[in-house]
């Protein structure tokens, strides 16, 4: 407990937030770096994964591909992928751009499966009758996708983005080991200096960042849920149709 208190004191020490201190301080610089890497790679991954997931979900083609692909990607060791890309790009690019490009690509690769699975399974969770009704009322396929399927699937889509964000935040921490910035840098330098307050302080900062981001996405998931569709929330177990403790009809009162 004493160690935690002293780590917290380390975090809140104003000296460690002073701009212009020796790297890896000040903390806010590493914090912003961490967010920047995460944000950039998430944006790139979203541009690739979400449209693909929507396509597969809408047409129902390539389901097996998504399942196999996401399963196989889960088996890929992050550290190995990261180091592999860093080395490959190290051959081509200059010393200062290689870590950034290599690790960003690694983050993108790691973020894609969750986003793809979220987008795909979100669309698949939409009631067939609802889609048929939309089609019967004269909507084009594009309108069905944009106005019916995506809004109804939004909590699950956001759920995929949420999982991807956590994966990237965790991996950025590891990437500090390979010379990238970010909060992991604080842990790494702490290990080098044998400074426990610093190690633990860095670890707590990353954990706090992950928890806050996770909480924000959880909130977004709740906000984007279509009212009256509570049983489609991602928390619902998959096969409880026949044995749900609650009545399936929406509450009236």
């Amino acid at each position, binding site marked *: 407990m004493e160690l935690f208190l002293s780590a917290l004191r380390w975090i809140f020490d104003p000296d460690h937030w002073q701009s212009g201190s020796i790297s890896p301080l000040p903390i806010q610089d590493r914090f912003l770096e961490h967010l920047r890497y995460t944000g950039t790679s998430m944006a790139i991954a979203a541009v690739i994964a979400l449209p693909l997931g929507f396509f597969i979900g809408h047409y129902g083609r390539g389901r097996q591909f998504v399942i196999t692909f996401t399963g196989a990607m889960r088996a890929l060791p992050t*550290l190995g992928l990261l180091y592999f890309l860093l080395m490959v790009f190290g051959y081509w690019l200059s010393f200062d751009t290689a870590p950034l490009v290599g690790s960003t690509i690694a983050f993108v690769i790691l973020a894609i499966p969750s986003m793809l699975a979220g987008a795909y399974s979100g669309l698949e969770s939409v009631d067939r*009758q609802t889609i048929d009704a939309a089609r019967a009322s004269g909507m084009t396929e594009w309108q069905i996708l944009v106005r019916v399927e995506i809004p109804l699937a939004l909590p699950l889509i956001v759920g995929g983005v949420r999982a991807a964000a956590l994966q990237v935040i965790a991996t950025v921490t590891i990437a500090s080991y390979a010379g990238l910035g970010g909060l992991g840098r604080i842990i790494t330098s702490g290990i080098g200096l044998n400074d426990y307050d610093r190690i633990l302080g860095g670890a707590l900062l990353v954990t706090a960042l992950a928890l806050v981001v996770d909480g924000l996405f959880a909130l977004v998931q709740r906000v984007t849920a279509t009212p009256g569709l509570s049983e489609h929330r991602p928390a619902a177990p998959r*096969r409880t149709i026949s*044995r749900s403790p609650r009545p399936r009809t929406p509450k009236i009162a």
Partner: protein
Amino acid sequence: MKWTRENLDLIRELTFNHVQLSILPIVLSFVIALPLGWLANRNRVLRSVVITVGSLLYTIPSLPLFVILPLIIGTRVLDATNLVVALTIYGVAIMARSAADALASVDKTTIDASTAVGYSSTARFLRVELPLAGPVLLAGIRVVSVSTIALVSVGVIIGSQNLGYLFQNGKQRGILEEVIVGILISLLLALIFDLVIVLIGRLLMPWNQSDRGGPSKRIAVPGAESQLLAPSPGDT
């Protein structure tokens, strides 16, 4: 291939360690998660507690957890126990949720029927609920297995000797082959573990074989008549 040929002993030893470090957390997380899943299925408050705590733990990034853990459980920083405990925590976080879902997937009428023919609650759990929850439990343990094997390699940062050593050493010495070999063996291990788990599942649940490939396939282009053929959504 030169590096590989010259370092077969090292590769063999690291692979062996990697397997050892993976098996324990996988087995432990199953053993710990099953009672938690059972608890979570008793009432809604416990369910949300188990799932919330599980997802919070799962949220903690791996490197910080590896670093924080020794301070909490009082081990030395470079002790292999840290890695096993950390991986077990992640495994339980996935598996408890999965176990709760698995037990919830058992048909209520079947449970009522087994009560009616005279099963005590313990016997009913062991001989009716558990076997019927088997397929979903199996799916959960497969996820745990794959992610554990991939995560073990991060442990090299806290001094654990496993395939992650090939990544770190390969990067430091600039031997790309070493990193690639590490990745390939890690993928291969994940595949072998998965096949073994599926095989164990087949042996324990011979009635489940026709179920392979998922219970239902979505009809490709939805049309009005497909509603008659398609099973209820959410059942996939």
